[in-house]
């Protein structure tokens, strides 16, 4: 499939979905509108709402807040995950002691932590960052742990035969291996950083995309909810594209599977 065909088909999916949405919310079928606009709004109202947000510039402040929260959550969670991942991988005894607690903490739905974080850290950005951190941390932690554990024994033996000491092994073998695992989960962890921020905002905030959606919901402004969702989706796609570019740069040494059309 050529690029042009692919793009055309992708656009078609969007157009058809939007048309169906529009028709079902405006044109009665057998005397009945299948999707009542009160619950489903319609594409034009949503587009109008998005347009107003951008035209008045209201949206930028909210996007900025969400972005800052997600970025902070990502970095703090990653640094914590890397440190603890390395520590546990190099100290199997510590890892064994903490194992059940790590599993417990990871199994806990993070949403239940949101009220605690709000109590502790207030309604500002830090309670959202904390929520994002709890999500990002575990992904990075598990990957770094795995990356350090799963260094090829041959590569490790080779490094030792080449005269590397513990510190050099760390720098030339464990660290790159752990990072490659971490980077391969970059999309997931960045995605979760955004999820943490938005969910946190939704549960109680004064700004951000989640707050915007929650406010619209509070006054039954369905167009506002959908508009918030669309802005969020676009925001995530932009971030994901940036991550892809960064990933390509960082993992240049990795073989790329040849995909043929």
């Amino acid at each position: 499939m050529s690029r042009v065909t692919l793009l055309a088909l992708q656009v078609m999916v969007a157009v058809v979905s939007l048309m169906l949405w529009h028709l079902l919310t405006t044109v009665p079928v057998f005397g009945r509108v299948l999707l009542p606009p009160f619950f489903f709004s319609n594409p034009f109202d949503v587009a109008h709402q998005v347009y107003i947000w951008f035209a008045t510039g209201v949206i930028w402040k909210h996007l900025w807040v969400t972005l800052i929260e997600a970025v902070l959550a990502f970095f703090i969670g990653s640094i914590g995950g890397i440190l603890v991942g390395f520590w546990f991988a190099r100290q199997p005894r510590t890892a064994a002691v903490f194992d059940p607690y790590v599993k417990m903490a990871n199994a806990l739905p993070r949403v239940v932590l949101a009220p605690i974080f709000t109590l502790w850290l207030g309604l500002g950005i830090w309670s959202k960052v904390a929520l994002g951190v709890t999500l990002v941390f575990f992904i990075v932690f598990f990957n770094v742990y795995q990356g350090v554990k799963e260094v090829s024994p041959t590569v490790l033996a080779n490094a030792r035969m080449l005269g590397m000491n513990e510190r050099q092994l760390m720098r030339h073998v464990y660290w790159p291996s752990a990072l490659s695992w971490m980077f391969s989960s970059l999309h997931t962890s960045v995605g979760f950083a955004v999820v943490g921020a938005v969910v946190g905002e939704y549960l109680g905030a004064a700004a951000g995309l989640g707050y915007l959606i929650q406010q619209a919901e509070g006054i039954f402004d369905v167009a506002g909810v959908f508009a918030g969702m669309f802005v969020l989706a676009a925001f995530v796609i932009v971030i994901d594209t940036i991550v892809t570019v960064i990933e390509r740069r960082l993992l240049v040494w990795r073989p790329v599977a040849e995909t043929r059309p």
Partner: protein
Amino acid sequence: MQETASPQTAAPSAIALNGVDVAFRLADGGVYTAVERADLAVADGEFVAIVGPTGCGKSTLLNIAAGLLAPAGGQVNIYGAPLPGLNRQAGYLFQADALFPWKTALENVAIGPETAGMPAPEARARAQAWLTRVGLGAFGDRYPHMLSGGQRKRVGLAQVLIRDPKILLMDEPFGPLDAQTRQIMGNLLLDLWSADRKAVLFVTHDLEEAIALSDRVVIMSAGPAARIIGDWRVPLARPRDISEIKAEPDFQKLHRDIWHMLKAEVIKGYAQAEGV
């Protein structure tokens, strides 16, 4: 059939294994004896090949000489001194890919000197010279996955030799390569080796390769509890060309003689590998 002991000279052997046992603890609590009472001496500057059926513990013996594995019994002496841990005087060329996948060919070769404390620019320059020596001067910026199997082995060879180890341990290094590339690599190895005659312990299951390359061929029996059962001097003149030497009558006679002994062990080895 001529059994030859290693010549007793005044200089201590580069590698001397005396009655080495190798055993592994199994998951069920039992003990698996891989190698039993192995005696092997490699003189300084000597090229010795170990040949044996699959799974006979050849590589295990190399790991013992490298210090990656401690023997369950017996003694390992390197230039007359007991081996305390890792063998710092040895370079090891592994069978599997051992290059650092996240480093370019040049970085892979330069890492040895850099680890030893050489400033990076100098290490890079030397690495470039070594890459050129193994015929990969223009491939320094490639990552391992961009190189062919033969090219990766060349980088591996440069990575090991740049450190100028006194002993070279090689574990079926050309095993995964195709026949033509193996010959080319064999000739390259002999070429590099003849420049400064390191002590070499070369493990292979290919008898032809062993005879063509080495001064002595050591035969191991099928495992478990594999033993060294033969030690043959290779009286072929150097320098050799691997593809031509195989046509010589001396080569063919030696090959016939050794193969006669090895055949029985290979059959035994297969039978065990298939769980018969």
